């Protein structure tokens, strides 16, 4: 009978040569520690001799030397040529057939429990991993209070391009720019217009449409030692975005182009005569200007998201910031 595929007698049969070769290699390794001059060469000699014998033995078949095939070791009596082998689908089943009328046989139970247990194990592994991937992105991070130096630096009625760092340790990534104008006092309290340069279209940095007096730039130190740059500017034509051409007036109201609302602004406090920047917020539009401006103020949302009008139904929820 021709042996079945994958159940062919192996030739040559098992031999002691690989074991001798392994013993030789082990002898080399031990010898390298104990006695590199004597034991290691002995191990090498053993390994070479047995390696050669092993190679000679293994290549017997196609060198044409006589081969003595060895029958595979299998349980049971040697196959008899008299009795025909029973095909797998006709022999006795490994598991007894379910009794007629049995509604939940053992085979079904095992099937469901394997799938169920597999599902539970899979869930235990993947759910925490996926949660770790997604949830940390929605942590409430908050905004640091950024000290921008003495309020007297901000001359009343003048605009300043003010550059600062949200998180100085992270470098340029946290570089932020605000356009700040001191409006004097309103009801005895200082009034400032602080416009974020983040375009309300897709977040590019808007630029003043007017001269930026770089030669009058002033470097000042914040309270925590961070560097702040103040450059006087005259945004007579408002602000423009270099990316897709959005245009705003000097109060940050949208004039033309793709932006969906006015420029964002920053809350502020004046502490001991120093200007401290607070949380940014979004603005639908501003009526009036300067200290008398009426700001239609909303919770901070991403660029391109409507805060008023019927389109606001598209953005009912905001992640916690």
């Amino acid at each position, binding site marked *: 009978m021709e042996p079945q*595929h*994958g159940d*062919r007698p192996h030739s040559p049969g098992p031999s002691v040569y690989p074991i001798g070769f392994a013993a030789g290699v082990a002898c080399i390794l031990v010898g390298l520690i104990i006695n590199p001059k004597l034991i290691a060469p002995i191990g090498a000699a053993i390994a070479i001799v047995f390696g050669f014998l092993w190679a000679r033995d293994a*290549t017997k*078949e*196609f*060198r*044409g030397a006589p081969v003595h095939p060895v029958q595979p070791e299998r349980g049971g009596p040697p196959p008899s040529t008299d009795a025909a082998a029973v095909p797998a689908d006709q022999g006795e089943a490994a598991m007894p057939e379910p009794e007629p009328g049995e509604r939940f046989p053992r085979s079904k139970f095992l099937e469901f429990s394997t799938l169920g247990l597999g599902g539970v194990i899979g869930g235990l592994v993947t759910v925490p991993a996926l949660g770790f991937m*997604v949830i*940390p*992105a*929605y*942590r409430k*991070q908050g905004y640091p209070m950024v000290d921008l130096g003495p309020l007297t630096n901000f001359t009343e009625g003048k605009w300043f391009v003010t550059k600062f760092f*949200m*998180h100085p*340790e*992270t*470098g*340029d*990534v*946290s570089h932020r720019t605000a356009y700040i104008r001191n409006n004097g006092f309103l009801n005895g309290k200082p009034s400032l217009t602080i416009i974020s340069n983040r375009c309300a279209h*897709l*977040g*590019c940095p808007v630029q003043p449409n007017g001269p930026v007096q770089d030669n009058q730039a002033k470097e000042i130190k914040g309270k925590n030692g961070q560097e702040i740059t103040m450059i006087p500017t005259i945004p007579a034509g408002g602000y423009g975005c270099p*990316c897709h051409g959005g245009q705003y007036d000097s109060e940050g109201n949208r004039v033309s182009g793709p932006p969906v609302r006015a420029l964002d602004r920053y809350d502020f406090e004046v502490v001991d005569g120093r200007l401290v920047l607070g949380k940014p917020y979004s603005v639908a539009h501003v009526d009036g200007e300067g200290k008398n401006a009426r700001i239609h103020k909303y919770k901070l*949302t*991403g*660029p*391109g*998201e409507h805060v008023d009008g019927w389109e606001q139904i*598209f*953005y*009912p*929820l*905001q*992640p916690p*910031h």
Partner: protein
Amino acid sequence: MAVTTRTRKSARRRQLEAAINYPIDWLEERSGLIGGLRYFLFRKVPGDTNWFHTLGSATLTAFLVQALTGVILAMYYQPDATVNPATGTSAAYGSIQHITNDLTLGWLVRGMHKWGASVFIILLFFHMARVFLFGAYKYPRELNWIIGVILLVFGMLEGFTGYLLPWDQTAYWATVVGINLNGTAPILGPFLADFLRGGAEIGGDTLSRFYSLHMLLLPGAIFALIGLHLYLVIRLGVTSPPWSREAAGTDWNEKPSENGRSGLTQPSGRSAWRRNGGDA
């Protein structure tokens, strides 16, 4: 004399062949891989396939170039936004400069990866156009078109995530705009934007997140989908071009096939292979 020489030579030749065949047979007996490879390489395709049918393999080759160069770039690139106080630049940008300017052949491998990305996307579109214009997306190959579209999306996402990695001004602002664009999607947009940024603002977490997506998650998914894509190509066979006379059954130069059908109108390459007697 000549006869004996030839016999001796042919005996040696037989021995040599046996030595070559032995490992091949060894592998085939234990895995069936050789037979599978033979089936893949010597399968029947319509006689009038042309150069346009090679665009898929070209796209695959471009992807493999990206995979290879990407793996090697990952040995030098550092997805780290931390600013080195000595140089004033971030570790990520510094490592890109190092690869491009200092390391032997770094400029070449980075260039291959950068320009190869465009080649990959362009070839994807050419391949897609070929399939569309040849009508090769029709029954029974609709599923392969769908897999191809997912591959296209994943390829574009590879471009988007890879663009941030140099961590320079271009990378930063392109990603600002790209993420805010996603943020304007209705309802879930703001949450999608936060997921991509790994928070409210772009920072170091965004960089390592994009790096992980770019080199682990997306390529893994693309490899798996390419496997599925190729499996379906082999299972369903290749289509003839629309102008194929052979497929239309009007090619008087060729002996018509037994059932008078081939190419577009036959259900699958494999069943045609069976109908023709199954001999490869």
